[in-house]
């Protein structure tokens, strides 16, 4: 039997003060799936994410990547499971967009031509062609978030984990990020997206996991469990699941232009 891409078994994390922030979490993430992990503030979502590539160690339980505990080779795990943090600024280390995207491949000790190839591909996938020499801290919030995604994509991960990627983004920023995620999913990347903002993305997911108080409250097809979200303190967006998206028509990102440039008036959200 082929093991799932990622299997979390009885994961438990207790803080030194005795607070159990993760309590017996067990779930599987299948290859090429698009999963949304939703929960209210303080439900343990971010702590859970940090466990996925070994930034935090569980009190008990384990995480298996292709059937192998992630702690056996943390370097490989971190290459295969890419994290995009909520605070994009914290993730940006390069002095230019291209240098930042190259940071991960450089750490993998790849050859310079391979690094350059991956940087080009990652920037193209994230809609940042033409931004190579821009300073990251001059980018808009949406562009920074896409750069954080590009920085992880350049490492060619199997799973992309995004923590609250829509925080602080306006509609065009969200829409561009959703375009990027859809492209990646089409290309076979497994996506795990952590959010409590279901209205922006749920229609794109094939699985929804609800988390509350460090436990899995429910999991399954978004259509089946959407009505349970308010039980854990997450607002249920109005309408059908199929309308829960801030995406707009797929489009190419023009080179050198910001997605949310002032001269580009976005259309009205589809909500």
């Amino acid at each position, binding site marked *: 039997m082929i093991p799932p891409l990622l299997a979390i078994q009885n994961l438990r994390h207790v803080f030194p003060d005795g607070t159990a922030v993760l309590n017996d979490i067990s779930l599987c993430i299948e290859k090429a799936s698009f999963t949304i992990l939703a929960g209210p503030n303080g439900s343990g979502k971010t702590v859970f994410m940090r466990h996925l590539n070994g930034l935090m160690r569980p009190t008990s339980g384990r995480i298996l990547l292709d059937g192998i505990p992630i702690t056996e080779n943390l370097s490989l795990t971190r290459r295969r499971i890419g994290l995009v943090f909520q605070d994009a600024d914290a993730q940006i*280390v390069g002095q230019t967009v291209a240098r930042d995207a190259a940071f991960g491949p450089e*750490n993998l000790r*790849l050859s310079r031509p391979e690094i350059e190839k991956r940087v080009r591909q990652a920037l193209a996938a994230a809609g940042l062609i033409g931004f190579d020499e821009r300073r990251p801290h001059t980018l808009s919030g949406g562009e920074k978030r896409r750069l954080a995604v590009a920085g992880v994509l350049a490492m060619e991960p199997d799973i992309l984990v995004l923590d609250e990627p829509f925080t602080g983004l306006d509609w065009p920023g969200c829409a561009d990020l959703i375009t990027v995620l859809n492209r990646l999913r089409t290309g076979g990347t497994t996506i795990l997206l952590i959010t409590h903002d279901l209205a922006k993305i749920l229609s794109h997911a094939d699985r929804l996991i609800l988390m509350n108080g460090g436990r899995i409250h429910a999991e399954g097809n978004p259509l089946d469990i959407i009505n349970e979200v308010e039980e854990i303190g997450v607002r249920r967006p109005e309408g059908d699941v199929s309308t829960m998206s801030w995406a707009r028509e797929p489009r190419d990102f023009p080179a050198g232009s910001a997605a949310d440039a002032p001269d580009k008036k976005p259309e009205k959200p589809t909500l």
Partner: protein
Amino acid sequence: MRELEFLHYKPGVSIWHRHDPRLKLLELAAWSILALAGNGTVTAAVGITVLGFHAAAGTSPKRMRRPLLFWAVMAAAIIVSAGFAEPAPPLIIGGIQFPIGITGLLTGTLRAGRLLVILLAGQLLASSTDPADLAGAVRKILSFLPKKWSGAVASALMLTISFLPLIMDETATIRDAALSRGLQNRKSIFRRAAVLALPMAESALKRSDLTAEALLSRCFTEDPTGPNLSVRAGDRLLFLAAMGPPAAAALFTGFTAG
């Protein structure tokens, strides 16, 4: 504080920006030694050379205003304390004798000048060199050491220069938030500093934590693929231009520290 821009890297395409970072490091070391150990003429020659390269790198004098103001305060303290340390012959102005010495004041002025030259040289290196290239250059220069050691020095340098602007920005945000809640009404500067110190330290630690996690998640290593470094003919000419005036001043004036 946000406009301080001291030790911030500014990307550019000037001849100095494209200069090999290993030679830049060598030049910084040589300038620092000459400025510290040489006489006043040698220090002045180094200063003029550094200013010339700042001009070539396109450094904006406006951006240097605040660092220079900071230096001026430090310089005043250095000069006055040197004057007090060496009270003879005393300074007399308009028949009034001050408890500070002229020789001490002159010595202090030279020390302040040396400090200025070294600050300007450090700023020239940091503002024109990508921290990743600088780290690569440090790794190459220190290649005789175990990789772990040279990697640690290079990474520390890269991270300091990379994250200084972010920490400055957060510090400024905390200060602005405190000012918007009436911090300026506290008369004592010490009380004002005390109010800001703890949140600033907490913020710096939190930022360090987030940065460390982000670096680890991207497989951070102290020995990554280095930049493509090569010394070209232009680099050799720049090196000669950088070393020529101070070396000539040292030769013609005997190099003795004044």
